[in-house]
């Protein structure tokens, strides 16, 4: 998977959620939601912010919560989702 896209997605997450962390420290496969070890511990409010960020950055609309939950599971999942929509 494109490292450029992963970098872009990580920067988007940090910028959109106003996180105080280095985007590079987000693991590609770490869960974005929930309290699992290594995860970011995001919640549904953050998910909506990511939806708005993805729409702005990539021009992709996400309105179905089920799709959103899968797409935002991890950086890898979000990259797959963006690549799938772009294809």
């Amino acid at each position, binding site marked *: 998977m494109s490292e450029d896209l992963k970098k872009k997605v990580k920067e988007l997450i940090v910028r959109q959620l106003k996180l105080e962390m280095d985007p590079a420290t987000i693991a590609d496969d770490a869960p974005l939601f929930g309290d699992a070890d290594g995860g970011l511990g995001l919640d*549904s*409010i953050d*998910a*909506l*912010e990511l*939806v*708005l960020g993805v*729409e702005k950055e990539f021009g992709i609309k*996400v*309105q179905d*919560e089920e799709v*959103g939950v899968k797409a935002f599971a991890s950086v890898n999942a979000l990259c797959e989702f963006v690549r799938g929509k772009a294809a």
Partner: protein
Amino acid sequence: MDFQPLPHAFPFRFADGVVERTGPAQGRVRASVTANAAAVRATGFPSAALAELVAQSALLLEGGDSALGRKGFLAGISDFVVERLPEPGDVLTVDVAIAGRLGDTVKFEGVVRDAEGGAIARGAVTVKQGSA
């Protein structure tokens, strides 16, 4: 046993009703700042209440009822700027437009205006639809 919530009164209810609908979850809501409101008497109208007003306005436009409840609650505030606080007797209007939605989580942009149309507060609120 079914729980039937009592109607909320001021200081919990700020938005009076929908004045105009301009699109899905978009429109204008009226809010009267009453002189006998406890919040106004004691400490003045709190800044945070303006964000709550935008949320209540948004939920009214989403189909809530001003007397019986708004089918949701304020869950987040972002980039909210207050230029001035309203005073008793002010009649405010709130222009609200949807910014994004994911399931029952909805973000709205809102502008609170005074009777002359000047913006006294603006910003975004996120609401969760349904019960807390």
